[in-house]
Protein backbone atom coordinates (compact mmCIF):
# COMPACT_ATOMS: atom_id res chain seq x y z
CA UNK A 1 0.00 0.00 0.00
CA UNK A 2 2.76 2.40 1.03
CA UNK A 3 4.72 1.50 -2.08
CA UNK A 4 1.69 2.16 -4.30
CA UNK A 5 1.12 5.58 -2.72
CA UNK A 6 4.81 6.38 -2.97
CA UNK A 7 4.85 5.56 -6.69
CA UNK A 8 1.60 7.43 -7.43
CA UNK A 9 2.82 10.63 -5.81
CA UNK A 10 6.42 10.50 -6.94
CA UNK A 11 5.41 9.79 -10.53
CA UNK A 12 2.92 12.65 -10.35
CA UNK A 13 5.71 14.86 -8.97
CA UNK A 14 8.21 13.86 -11.65
CA UNK A 15 5.72 14.15 -14.53
CA UNK A 16 4.61 17.61 -13.49
CA UNK A 17 8.25 18.63 -12.99
CA UNK A 18 8.79 17.49 -16.56
CA UNK A 19 5.86 19.70 -17.53
CA UNK A 20 7.62 22.68 -15.92
CA UNK A 21 10.62 22.14 -18.17
CA UNK A 22 8.82 21.33 -21.41
CA UNK A 23 5.67 23.50 -21.51
CA UNK A 24 6.12 26.56 -23.70
CA UNK A 25 3.57 28.73 -21.93
CA UNK A 26 4.91 30.12 -18.61
CA UNK A 27 1.46 29.91 -16.97
CA UNK A 28 1.24 26.18 -17.76
CA UNK A 29 4.72 25.75 -16.35
CA UNK A 30 3.73 27.53 -13.13
CA UNK A 31 0.57 25.43 -12.75
CA UNK A 32 2.63 22.31 -13.34
CA UNK A 33 5.03 23.47 -10.65
CA UNK A 34 2.13 23.84 -8.15
CA UNK A 35 1.10 20.23 -8.86
CA UNK A 36 4.70 19.11 -8.39
CA UNK A 37 4.95 20.87 -5.00
CA UNK A 38 1.68 19.37 -3.76
CA UNK A 39 2.73 15.88 -4.85
CA UNK A 40 6.04 16.42 -3.05
CA UNK A 41 4.09 17.34 0.11
CA UNK A 42 2.28 13.98 -0.20
CA UNK A 43 5.65 12.22 -0.50
CA UNK A 44 6.73 13.99 2.72
CA UNK A 45 3.63 12.55 4.40
CA UNK A 46 4.74 9.03 3.42
CA UNK A 47 7.96 9.84 5.32
CA UNK A 48 5.96 10.83 8.47
CA UNK A 49 7.12 14.46 8.13
CA UNK A 50 3.72 16.07 8.58
CA UNK A 51 5.03 19.48 9.62
CA UNK A 52 7.29 19.74 6.58
CA UNK A 53 4.41 18.64 4.34
CA UNK A 54 2.16 21.38 5.72
CA UNK A 55 4.90 24.01 5.39
CA UNK A 56 5.54 22.83 1.84
CA UNK A 57 1.92 23.42 0.87
CA UNK A 58 1.66 26.72 2.75
CA UNK A 59 4.93 28.31 1.65
CA UNK A 60 5.66 26.78 -1.75
CA UNK A 61 2.28 25.92 -3.23
CA UNK A 62 0.76 28.99 -1.56
CA UNK A 63 3.05 31.98 -1.20
CA UNK A 64 5.85 31.30 -3.67
CA UNK A 65 3.59 30.19 -6.50
CA UNK A 66 1.22 33.13 -6.05
CA UNK A 67 4.28 35.37 -6.37
CA UNK A 68 5.36 33.55 -9.54
CA UNK A 69 1.91 33.74 -11.14
CA UNK A 70 1.57 37.38 -10.13
CA UNK A 71 4.84 38.26 -11.85
CA UNK A 72 3.95 36.21 -14.96
CA UNK A 73 0.64 38.07 -15.24
CA UNK A 74 2.32 41.40 -14.49
CA UNK A 75 4.93 41.00 -17.19
CA UNK A 76 2.26 39.70 -19.60
CA UNK A 77 4.49 36.90 -20.86
CA UNK A 78 3.05 35.14 -23.86
CA UNK A 79 3.92 31.80 -25.26
CA UNK A 80 7.58 31.81 -26.20
CA UNK A 81 8.30 32.26 -29.84
CA UNK A 82 10.02 29.30 -31.37
CA UNK A 83 13.58 30.37 -31.78
CA UNK A 84 16.37 28.62 -33.51
CA UNK A 85 17.24 25.69 -31.28
CA UNK A 86 20.87 25.87 -30.38
CA UNK A 87 22.10 22.33 -30.74
CA UNK A 88 25.22 22.89 -28.62
CA UNK A 89 23.14 24.10 -25.64
CA UNK A 90 20.81 21.10 -25.82
CA UNK A 91 23.72 18.73 -26.29
CA UNK A 92 25.62 20.18 -23.34
CA UNK A 93 22.54 20.22 -21.12
CA UNK A 94 21.59 16.68 -22.08
CA UNK A 95 25.13 15.49 -21.44
CA UNK A 96 25.30 17.07 -17.96
CA UNK A 97 21.84 15.82 -16.94
CA UNK A 98 22.37 12.34 -18.38
CA UNK A 99 25.76 12.03 -16.72
CA UNK A 100 24.28 13.13 -13.40
CA UNK A 101 21.45 10.58 -13.59
CA UNK A 102 23.72 7.69 -14.58
CA UNK A 103 26.25 8.51 -11.84
CA UNK A 104 23.42 8.76 -9.30
CA UNK A 105 21.90 5.40 -10.29
CA UNK A 106 25.31 3.74 -10.20
CA UNK A 107 26.13 5.05 -6.71
CA UNK A 108 22.71 4.54 -5.12
CA UNK A 109 22.16 1.03 -6.47
CA UNK A 110 25.65 -0.12 -5.54
CA UNK A 111 25.27 0.66 -1.83
CA UNK A 112 23.47 -2.16 0.01
CA UNK A 113 23.08 0.13 3.06
CA UNK A 114 20.52 2.15 1.10
CA UNK A 115 18.29 -0.83 0.29
CA UNK A 116 16.64 -0.80 3.71
CA UNK A 117 12.93 -0.35 4.34
CA UNK A 118 11.63 2.19 6.81
CA UNK A 119 12.43 1.18 10.40
CA UNK A 120 9.45 1.39 12.75
CA UNK A 121 9.37 4.47 14.98
CA UNK A 122 9.13 3.96 18.73
CA UNK A 123 6.04 6.24 18.89
CA UNK A 124 4.32 5.85 15.51
CA UNK A 125 1.97 8.79 16.07
CA UNK A 126 4.47 11.14 17.69
CA UNK A 127 3.78 14.85 17.46
CA UNK A 128 6.44 15.88 14.99
CA UNK A 129 5.39 19.54 15.09
CA UNK A 130 6.23 19.56 18.80
CA UNK A 131 9.55 17.86 18.16
CA UNK A 132 10.56 20.21 15.35
CA UNK A 133 9.49 23.28 17.31
CA UNK A 134 11.35 22.11 20.40
CA UNK A 135 14.48 21.49 18.34
CA UNK A 136 14.11 24.82 16.52
CA UNK A 137 13.88 26.95 19.65
CA UNK A 138 16.25 24.94 21.86
CA UNK A 139 19.11 23.79 19.63
CA UNK A 140 18.77 26.17 16.69
CA UNK A 141 17.79 29.40 18.37
CA UNK A 142 20.62 31.49 16.90
CA UNK A 143 20.11 30.29 13.30
CA UNK A 144 16.39 30.91 13.77
CA UNK A 145 17.04 34.56 14.66
CA UNK A 146 19.60 34.93 11.88
CA UNK A 147 17.02 33.69 9.39
CA UNK A 148 14.62 36.33 10.74
CA UNK A 149 17.22 38.99 9.92
CA UNK A 150 17.63 37.40 6.47
CA UNK A 151 13.91 37.74 5.81
CA UNK A 152 14.00 41.37 6.94
CA UNK A 153 16.94 42.09 4.64
CA UNK A 154 15.14 40.37 1.76
CA UNK A 155 12.01 42.46 2.38
CA UNK A 156 13.99 45.70 2.43
CA UNK A 157 15.88 44.62 -0.68
CA UNK A 158 12.68 43.86 -2.57
CA UNK A 159 11.20 47.24 -1.66
CA UNK A 160 14.38 48.98 -2.83
CA UNK A 161 14.56 46.98 -6.05
CA UNK A 162 10.94 47.70 -6.87
CA UNK A 163 11.32 51.45 -6.57
CA UNK A 164 11.08 53.33 -9.84
CA UNK A 165 14.03 55.56 -9.19
CA UNK A 166 16.66 55.28 -6.52
CA UNK A 167 17.49 58.55 -4.85
Amino acid at each position, binding site marked *: MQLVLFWIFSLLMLLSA*MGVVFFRNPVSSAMSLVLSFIALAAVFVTLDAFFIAVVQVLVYAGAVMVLFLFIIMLLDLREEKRRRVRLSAWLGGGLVVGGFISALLKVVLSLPALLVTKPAMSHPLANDIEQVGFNLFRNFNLPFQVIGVLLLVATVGVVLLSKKELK
Partner: protein
Amino acid sequence: MPTLAHYLIVSGLLFALGMAGVLLRRNLLIIFMGLELMLNAANLSLVAFSRFNLGPDGMPNYNAQVFVFFIITVAAAEVAVGLAIIVALYRAKQTTHVDDLNTLKF
Protein backbone atom coordinates in the same frame (compact mmCIF):
# COMPACT_ATOMS: atom_id res chain seq x y z
CA MET B 1 7.64 -0.78 1.32
CA PRO B 2 9.74 1.88 -0.45
CA THR B 3 13.41 1.75 0.47
CA LEU B 4 15.79 4.64 1.04
CA ALA B 5 17.19 4.07 -2.46
CA HIS B 6 13.71 4.71 -3.93
CA TYR B 7 13.54 8.11 -2.26
CA LEU B 8 17.10 9.03 -3.21
CA ILE B 9 16.54 8.12 -6.86
CA VAL B 10 13.28 10.08 -7.03
CA SER B 11 15.01 13.02 -5.39
CA GLY B 12 17.90 12.76 -7.83
CA LEU B 13 15.54 12.65 -10.80
CA LEU B 14 13.73 15.73 -9.50
CA PHE B 15 17.10 17.48 -9.15
CA ALA B 16 18.02 16.44 -12.71
CA LEU B 17 14.75 17.84 -14.05
CA GLY B 18 15.39 21.12 -12.26
CA MET B 19 18.88 21.22 -13.68
CA ALA B 20 17.52 20.50 -17.16
CA GLY B 21 15.14 23.45 -16.69
CA VAL B 22 18.03 25.73 -15.73
CA LEU B 23 20.30 24.56 -18.54
CA LEU B 24 17.86 24.18 -21.43
CA ARG B 25 15.23 26.88 -20.99
CA ARG B 26 15.90 30.46 -22.02
CA ASN B 27 13.18 32.23 -20.06
CA LEU B 28 14.37 33.72 -16.75
CA LEU B 29 11.16 32.78 -14.93
CA ILE B 30 11.38 29.15 -16.02
CA ILE B 31 15.05 29.07 -14.97
CA PHE B 32 13.87 30.25 -11.56
CA MET B 33 11.28 27.47 -11.39
CA GLY B 34 14.09 25.01 -12.16
CA LEU B 35 16.03 26.36 -9.17
CA GLU B 36 13.00 25.77 -6.95
CA LEU B 37 12.75 22.18 -8.16
CA MET B 38 16.41 21.62 -7.28
CA LEU B 39 15.92 23.01 -3.75
CA ASN B 40 12.91 20.74 -3.31
CA ALA B 41 14.93 17.72 -4.38
CA ALA B 42 17.49 18.51 -1.68
CA ASN B 43 14.67 18.78 0.88
CA LEU B 44 13.29 15.40 -0.14
CA SER B 45 16.59 13.62 0.37
CA LEU B 46 17.11 15.34 3.75
CA VAL B 47 13.70 14.23 5.00
CA ALA B 48 14.25 10.71 3.65
CA PHE B 49 17.58 10.39 5.49
CA SER B 50 16.00 11.73 8.68
CA ARG B 51 13.21 9.12 8.57
CA PHE B 52 15.42 6.16 7.69
CA ASN B 53 18.15 6.79 10.28
CA LEU B 54 16.32 6.67 13.60
CA GLY B 55 18.12 8.03 16.64
CA PRO B 56 18.75 6.09 19.85
CA ASP B 57 15.23 6.98 21.07
CA GLY B 58 13.68 5.37 18.01
CA MET B 59 12.53 8.69 16.55
CA PRO B 60 13.58 10.37 13.27
CA ASN B 61 16.40 12.86 13.38
CA TYR B 62 14.50 16.12 13.70
CA ASN B 63 17.61 18.21 13.05
CA ALA B 64 17.16 17.39 9.37
CA GLN B 65 13.59 18.66 9.42
CA VAL B 66 14.72 21.91 11.06
CA PHE B 67 17.29 22.19 8.29
CA VAL B 68 14.54 21.69 5.69
CA PHE B 69 12.54 24.42 7.40
CA PHE B 70 15.52 26.78 7.04
CA ILE B 71 15.95 25.82 3.39
CA ILE B 72 12.29 26.61 2.70
CA THR B 73 12.67 29.99 4.39
CA VAL B 74 15.79 30.86 2.41
CA ALA B 75 14.07 29.73 -0.81
CA ALA B 76 11.12 32.01 -0.10
CA ALA B 77 13.44 34.99 0.47
CA GLU B 78 15.39 34.09 -2.67
CA VAL B 79 12.23 33.94 -4.78
CA ALA B 80 11.11 37.35 -3.55
CA VAL B 81 14.45 39.01 -4.30
CA GLY B 82 14.93 37.18 -7.60
CA LEU B 83 11.50 38.08 -8.90
CA ALA B 84 12.07 41.71 -7.92
CA ILE B 85 15.31 41.64 -9.92
CA ILE B 86 13.47 40.10 -12.90
CA VAL B 87 10.83 42.85 -12.73
CA ALA B 88 13.55 45.51 -12.60
CA LEU B 89 15.27 43.87 -15.60
CA TYR B 90 12.02 43.73 -17.50
CA ARG B 91 11.44 47.41 -16.80
CA ALA B 92 14.86 48.26 -18.23
CA LYS B 93 14.95 45.87 -21.20
CA GLN B 94 11.35 44.74 -21.88
CA THR B 95 12.41 41.12 -22.04
CA THR B 96 12.96 38.09 -19.82
CA HIS B 97 14.72 36.06 -22.46
CA VAL B 98 18.34 35.36 -21.51
CA ASP B 99 19.58 35.59 -25.10
CA ASP B 100 18.47 39.23 -25.21
CA LEU B 101 20.27 40.09 -21.95
CA ASN B 102 23.82 40.17 -23.23
CA THR B 103 25.10 43.57 -22.09
CA LEU B 104 27.66 41.97 -19.80
CA LYS B 105 28.76 39.46 -22.39
CA PHE B 106 32.44 39.65 -23.23
